[in-house]
């Protein structure tokens, strides 16, 4: 049943038409439509008013479990922003803990990025031999100095004690604080606990701090010297909390209790954890792209792509006549489907990626050219049109597949999908490899299946000589 359905070219074309319209809808950017037109008198002179916004649709599926807007994701080189490669200094970390240290480094940096309020950011880890690295990409961030300071500082978190020179006189005001040598690097982690002690404050959230061995020593000295005084915890020169020391802490496990709501406690714990990088980092590579450079390049590239597309279509039509028109239709469908896939997957579009897309338009007609040349040969050999057309498709397939496999293999190496450390990984290059590979797969579909069925339906009655 199903195979019979697909044997009818008209049915296949219906599906293709459906896919194309669907892809076209996905491709459509948000466009307002405002029609306000007065019909001429002889048509009744009525006013036609219509106003709506089409395009820019969102994905909404599985009762809202899958939700996304369908905008093209722009890479850093287009959107502008900063990308930083940092190396973690693991010299003080034992071999078995390095992987964990890298993971917690990533977590801390992610939290700091969130604290900065940067929405489009990615933080990745990478290992190359004995090098442990973090790659941070912040789209749309141009105040790089501040962002990098916040992200890369080891100890933004500081513990301060009351200034003995300026003792507080009024308990309603916080005293002056002076810095100590205890900072975020000494803090292992902060967690939320619940008070189990007396009945009054039972089950109230409290904050538990765990220091590392160095921190334990320092904290012991501080608490011993500041009994019944305040020890303030500062993040970025802003005071987070200033609890009073109730007893000397010898084991590096401190508990801060008070009238915390659960929300407050959670926020504090996040801030405390974000305040400590487990290991120091050093910036190895930094790339900042201003907001205009990428946009200009995109506009120019799209213009260039349009000019190229017209040239290719003109060439195909001039050289192959009506077959060329069908190939051009297939090429436009190729463009629609490809763009729609970029939006659905989504593909992060970089400038080289855009170049890959434009290049793939030129390659997409390759299958058609192979096939058309075969058809010409078959006709020259004296075979009837119908058989020549089918043979042309059948015999070209091996060549098309073989020839494209080499490009797919290269794209694989360039994309490095498994993050093999011995291969280069660069965002823009990956963008190129991805659009190139996608282009080949989609063009196999449009160049072979779509063109074939277009020809079966529209090319039956044509004279042999014209091809």
């Amino acid at each position, binding site marked *: 049943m199903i195979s019979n359905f697909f044997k009818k070219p008209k049915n296949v074309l219906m599906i293709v038409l459906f896919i194309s319209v669907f892809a076209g809808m996905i491709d459509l950017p948000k466009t307002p439509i405002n029609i306000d037109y007065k019909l001429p008198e002889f048509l009744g002179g009525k006013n036609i008013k219509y106003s709506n916004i089409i395009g820019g649709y969102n994905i909404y599926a599985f009762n809202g479990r899958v939700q996304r807007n369908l905008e093209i994701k722009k890479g850093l080189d287009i959107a502008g922003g900063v990308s930083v490669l940092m190396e973690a200094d693991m010299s003080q970390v034992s071999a078995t803990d390095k992987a964990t240290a890298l993971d917690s480094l990533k977590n801390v940096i992610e939290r700091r990025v969130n604290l900065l309020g940067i929405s489009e950011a990615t933080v990745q880890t990478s290992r190359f031999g004995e090098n442990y690295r973090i790659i941070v990409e912040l789209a749309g961030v141009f105040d790089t100095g501040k962002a990098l300071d916040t992200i890369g500082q080891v100890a933004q978190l500081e513990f301060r004690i009351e200034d003995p020179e300026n003792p507080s006189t009024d308990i309603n005001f916080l005293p002056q604080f002076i810095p100590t040598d205890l900072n975020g690097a000494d803090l292992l982690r902060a967690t939320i606990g619940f008070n189990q002690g007396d009945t009054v404050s039972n089950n109230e959230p409290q904050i538990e701090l765990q220091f590392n061995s160095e921190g334990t020593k320092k904290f012991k000295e501080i608490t011993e010297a500041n009994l019944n005084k305040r020890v303030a915890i500062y993040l970025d020169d802003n005071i987070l909390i200033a609890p009073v020391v109730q007893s000397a802490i010898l084991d590096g496990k401190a508990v801060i209790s008070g009238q915390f709501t659960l929300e407050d406690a959670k926020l504090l714990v996040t801030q405390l954890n974000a305040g400590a990088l487990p290991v120091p980092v050093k910036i190895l590579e930094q790339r900042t792209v201003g907001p205009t450079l990428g946009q200009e390049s995109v506009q*120019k590239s799209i213009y*260039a792509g349009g000019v190229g597309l017209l040239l290719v279509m003109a060439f195909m039509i001039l050289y192959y006549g009506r077959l060329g028109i069908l190939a051009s239709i297939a090429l436009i469908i190729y463009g629609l489907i490809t763009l729609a896939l970029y939006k659905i997957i989504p593909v992060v579009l970089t400038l080289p990626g855009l170049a890959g897309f434009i290049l793939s338009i030129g390659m997409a007609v390759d299958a058609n050219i192979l096939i058309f040349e075969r058809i010409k040969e078959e006709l020259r050999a004296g075979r009837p049109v119908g058989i020549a057309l089918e043979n042309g498709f059948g015999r070209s397939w091996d060549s098309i597949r073989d020839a494209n496999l080499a490009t797919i293999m290269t794209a694989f*190496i360039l994309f490095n999908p498994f993050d093999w450390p011995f291969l280069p990984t660069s965002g823009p290059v990956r963008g190129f490899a991805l659009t190139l590979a996608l282009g080949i797969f989609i063009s196999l579909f449009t160049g072979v299946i779509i063109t074939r069925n277009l020809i079966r339906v529209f090319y039956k009655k044509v004279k042999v000589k014209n091809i």
Partner: protein
Amino acid sequence: MIDFMKFKSTYFFISSVLVLTALASIFVWGLKPAIDFTGGALIEVSISDENVSSDDLSQYATNIESVDVSSVQKIQDTNNYVLRTNTIDENKKAEILSEFKNNYSNVVEVRFETVGPTLGRELLIKTGVAIFLASILILFYVARQFKDRIYGVSAILAMFHDTLILIGAFAIFGHFYEVEVDTLFVTAVLTTLSFSVHDTIVVFDRVRESLHDRPNLNPYDVINKAVTETLSRSINNSMTIIFMLTALSLLGGVTIRWFSVALLIGTVIGTYSSTFTAAPLLLILMRRRRQNS
């Protein structure tokens, strides 16, 4: 059928001239590696002020402690200047920019890239691995595909021929237009590798097909027939790619201009070599085999 193989010594002569020119340019001028490979920093600023000169910019930047400026380049038709320096950090960059702002109006940072020196070496190694791996993969693929060594050998020789000429072209561009070789160039080289065998496979497929039907045919005729049959396809297909890449090279953004040019050269040479280098090579290897047996 056109007797293409009659002129095979001419093709070899053209190829030799191209390859030798490429080798000479590579050895004499070398490639200009970008900071991706050497480490260093690049600052692109836009300064719309009439009194700007590259020398002054270089001087202002050099005045700052531990900043060495290696070159200042004005980008044609824009107010943008590209400074190349040693590896500097965000703070040094801020100092340089504020120095410019003190002297000129309308200073805008367009782009800043800085790469540590160790990273450059590392990328060089990884790039080598990538090129090696791609060649090996393609070699195995061609060998498996044709189950006959001489096809693989001819295809791979043509592929190296293309790669050498592309690299040579960039040695020349580097010398005359200060074009640098960066990660994107390597990407273009790898893509050229695959495009090169792409066309060659189509020609060789035809040779194999003919010989499969009638194995005793004269290789000279078989290859001539294959080339005749595939030439218009090869040229037409490349034409469409060349249209796209030419448009991109001439009209596209600055960032990917030389990337497009590299791909363009690779495509043109790849098309030429599959017909005029790989096919004659295959003929020579086939004849030699017949003489020996």
